């Protein structure tokens, strides 16, 4: 009996609280409807921006889906592997290009130096060289190696 009474009082209290709360909520709704045009306009602007963001987001999702399905058709593995590979490709191409350029420059320098050496060694020694004291000393000196 006592327990029933307590339960009844608790339920009644809860119902009263809910009724009061809904009355307050109705007043808050009425108050919210009376907002200034400036605020309403800024909310509308925010809503438009949000919708544009949603369209962008959906477009990106579709783009990724198309890329993934293309990779799957080409049989080059899963979408994440393909996307990762595609993003690393430009870097790999850059590094390979730099190595090739460095190699080509080195070869060019070697061939230019070889041409100069060949021209010097193949040419006759001028007479004036034998009268140069420095050159005479160089000829007398023992080879360093």
């Amino acid at each position, binding site marked *: 009996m006592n327990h029933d009474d307590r339960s009844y009082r608790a339920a*009644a*209290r809860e119902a*009263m*609280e*809910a*009724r*009061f*709360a*809904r*009355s*307050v*909520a*109705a*007043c*808050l*709704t*009425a*108050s*919210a*409807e*009376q*907002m200034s045009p400036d*605020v*309403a306009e*800024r*909310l509308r*602007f*925010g*809503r438009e*921006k*949000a*919708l544009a*963001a*949603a*369209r*962008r*987001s*959906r477009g990106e*999702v579709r783009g990724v889906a198309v890329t993934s399905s293309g990779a799957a058709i080409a049989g080059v593995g899963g979408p994440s592997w393909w996307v990762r590979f595609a993003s690393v490709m430009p870097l790999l191409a850059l590094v390979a290009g730099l190595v090739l350029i460095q190699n080509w420059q080195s070869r060019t320098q070697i061939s230019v130096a070889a041409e100069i050496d060949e021209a010097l060694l193949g040419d006759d020694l001028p007479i004036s060289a034998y009268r140069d004291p420095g050159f005479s000393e160089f000829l007398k000196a023992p080879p360093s190696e």
Partner: protein
Amino acid sequence: MATDKELSDFLKSVEKRAWKRAVYAVRDDDAALDIVQDTMIRLSEKYADRPAAELPLLFQRILSNATMDWFRRQKVKNQVVRNFSEYETAGEDDFDILETLEALGGPLQSESAADSVSRAQILQTIEAEVALLPARQREAFLLRYWEELDVAETAASMGCSEGSVKTHCSRAVHALAKALKAKGITT
């Protein structure tokens, strides 16, 4: 996936209440507008592919997070903590809500008036008292009774237990009833 129209209609239906909720929390109209706009954009960017039925709960969660972010940015964490401690001590008196609630009976109104000026004053008073509630109590109260989420959804949105939601709501109702009665807003 929610269509553009569904998303637009949903945002239109919640934006005013969301702005008011943010105003109650941060007490700054412009900051509240920024928070609501940020919430709408975050929802649209991250959850545009979700079904329309999931949007209300997600929106409330993001709004709560955006409001907390604002407080963090403003470095007023101490103020929030103070509000939480107010909640700890609130609602421990022997005020009998039944007495007030039974007196209220129908829609809230002032003792003397039915004209529009007094109605506007009543609405202002109620808003002010709602704004004065401790943060967690106010959030629970507004989600449960204004946004009409059920207890489980409110708990999920606030990141707390269902029991805590019931306690917050009950204390908020008691505090509001007491404050409004003190202001003469009864039948």
